[in-house]
């Protein structure tokens, strides 16, 4: 990715750093936050929204690496799922309180990220990606064999516990607001990182690595740091999901999960801050609601074939992939941002 081809094929939306667009952005984010806060009261199903947000965080963390540093990891599921297992195990077997579980999960994500990153960063481009894939597959194998993960039965019955030992999280609503707060904080961290001097250097590395090196930056150290942050936040997302749903399974460390997060980021918009959130929503909604969407379309248009849509999740996902790559390359948010900045 970085420095392999002369062209920056992956567009970076400059609209995110120009100050003029800043106010508009803040208003939109504010609205989104407000929407999320009132969602349960408006009738949205809290667990589903939480699921979307976990994946949104996962996608944003992943995007930190691909969209802003130019590193494509094929094995991000390792951090997401691995941390989920660690946090789940800690909460279920060691009986730690949820916030400790989440911290442990995040640290696990960071730790695995450090190992994978140190090995993978030695290589560039597609080889970097393949090393991440290979290491993720090896972690999958370990998870498959290790007794504590429960194999394909999964790690079941993770308790919700009491936050800090006092606040019981068994009610969906309570858990919703606690998790929302954590995820918003994590997202804010990502935004700060991107806008910080550190983030600028990452962008410089992505656009022209040799030049960054010639300017005297220890490029490898920066890449590794970005990798670890991305892995840690992916781990946080995975741990929250384990807490919310109460279990962790092999699906979370499977390569299809790595593929999923790539799809979310692509559909939403690589290199945009809000893109992954939109992408996560689209993909999760697709997986969970395609059957409902199908029935709705069937009733709307009267074409009964739509009823079978629920059985074709992979096919629809594939079509979306194809359309996105061919026509919608900047993703939903990317295209929207490009549209609005062109209008200025």
């Amino acid at each position, binding site marked *: 990715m970085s420095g*392999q081809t002369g062209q920056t094929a992956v567009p970076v939306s400059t609209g995110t750093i120009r100050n003029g667009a800043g106010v508009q952005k803040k208003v939109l984010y504010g609205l989104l936050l407000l929407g999320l806060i009132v969602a349960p009261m408006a009738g949205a199903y809290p667990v589903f929204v939480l699921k979307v947000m976990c994946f949104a965080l996962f996608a944003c963390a992943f995007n930190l690496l691909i969209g802003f540093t130019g590193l494509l990891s094929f094995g991000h599921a390792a951090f997401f799922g691995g941390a989920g297992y660690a946090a789940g195990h800690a909460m279920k077997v060691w009986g730690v309180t949820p916030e400790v579980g989440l911290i442990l999960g995040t640290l696990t994500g960071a730790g695995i990220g450090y190992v994978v990153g140190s090995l993978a960063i030695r290589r560039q481009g597609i080889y970097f990606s393949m090393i991440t894939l290979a290491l993720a597959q090896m972690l999958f194998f370990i998870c498959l064999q290790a007794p504590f993960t429960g194999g394909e039965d999964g790690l079941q019955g993770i308790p919700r516990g009491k936050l800090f030992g006092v606040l019981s999280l068994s009610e969906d609503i309570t858990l919703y607001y606690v998790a929302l707060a954590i995820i918003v904080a994590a997202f804010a961290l990502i935004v700060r990182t991107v806008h910080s001097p550190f983030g600028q250097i990452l962008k410089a590395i992505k656009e022209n690595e040799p030049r960054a090196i010639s300017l005297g930056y220890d490029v490898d150290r920066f890449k590794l740091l970005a990798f670890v942050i991305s892995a840690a936040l992916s781990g946080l997302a995975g741990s929250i999901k384990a807490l919310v749903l109460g279990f962790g399974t092999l699906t979370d460390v499977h390569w299809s999960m790595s593929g999923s997060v790539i799809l979310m980021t692509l559909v939403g918009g690589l290199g945009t801050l809000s893109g992954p959130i939109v992408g996560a929503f689209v993909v999760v909604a697709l997986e969970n609601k395609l059957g409902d969407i199908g029935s709705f379309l069937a009733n709307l248009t009267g074409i009964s074939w739509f009823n079978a849509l629920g059985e074709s999740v992979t096919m629809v996902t594939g079509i979306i992939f194809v359309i996105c790559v061919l026509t919608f390359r900047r993703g939903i948010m990317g295209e929207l941002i490009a549209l609005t900045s062109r209008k200025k």
Partner: protein
Amino acid sequence: MLSQLLLGLVNGAFYAMLSLGLAVIFGLLNVINFAHGALFMLGALLAWAGMEYAGLNYWVMLALSPIIVGVLGVIIEKSMLRWIYKLDHIYGLLLTLGITLVIEGVFRSIYGVSGLPYSPPDALQGATDLGFMILPNYRAWVVVASLVVCFATWFVIEKTKLGAYLRAGTENPKMVEAFGVNVPLMVTLTYGFGVALAAFAGVLAAPVIQVSPLMGQNLIIVVFAVVVIGGMGSIMGSILTGLGLGVIEGLTKVFYPEASATVVFFIMVIVLLLRPAGLFGREK
């Protein structure tokens, strides 16, 4: 032990055959063709369909199936792939991944997942007693066919003028076009040829692995690993790596069978760390 090594070689020849198409497409088009697994499956499915609907036997389908899939490949290339050549590898990968999901999804909804029965042709039924093991005749044929096709392809690409045009066309298309060679046509036909190789492997596999819409999924990741280890631009690299990996996998099945699917990734990490561009590759 000897029998396990031989079996490993049989599998290896098959991996070599499958990764060959992928290596050709990457080496000459710079596209990571994730759809290889799905097109492999399509080749096998066509062999079954030929038998089921038209009574065409194995030998006919061995020639016909690759041609049909090759034509499909040309259509895919002309309609979708050529838009993304200038872009980063990731787009090619994602596009072909999308194509894979669509192909697998469509056939899955038509044929289900359990698979369709397909038997080896009569001429190749039965087995030969080699003394230390009994080797089914069909497997022996797979090795022979794979090796012949592999080396023929390698020869054409590395040693003939056509191959030289192909290689030059990737590195410097404008120059080659200036010489009057139709580069876009060459590229299209190369993709068609690469996927035809996948389909050929599919027909070879049909009597051995149950023909099902998901049959490509498990193999594609391993084949990828083979190509990467061998060196992404190198034809000979994937052939030799395919063979070698088959043997190593065979040995793993004896000593630590549970890990036999994961050993290839372990090797991939080690090779990539020691030799950046794979065993035989050239850093682009």
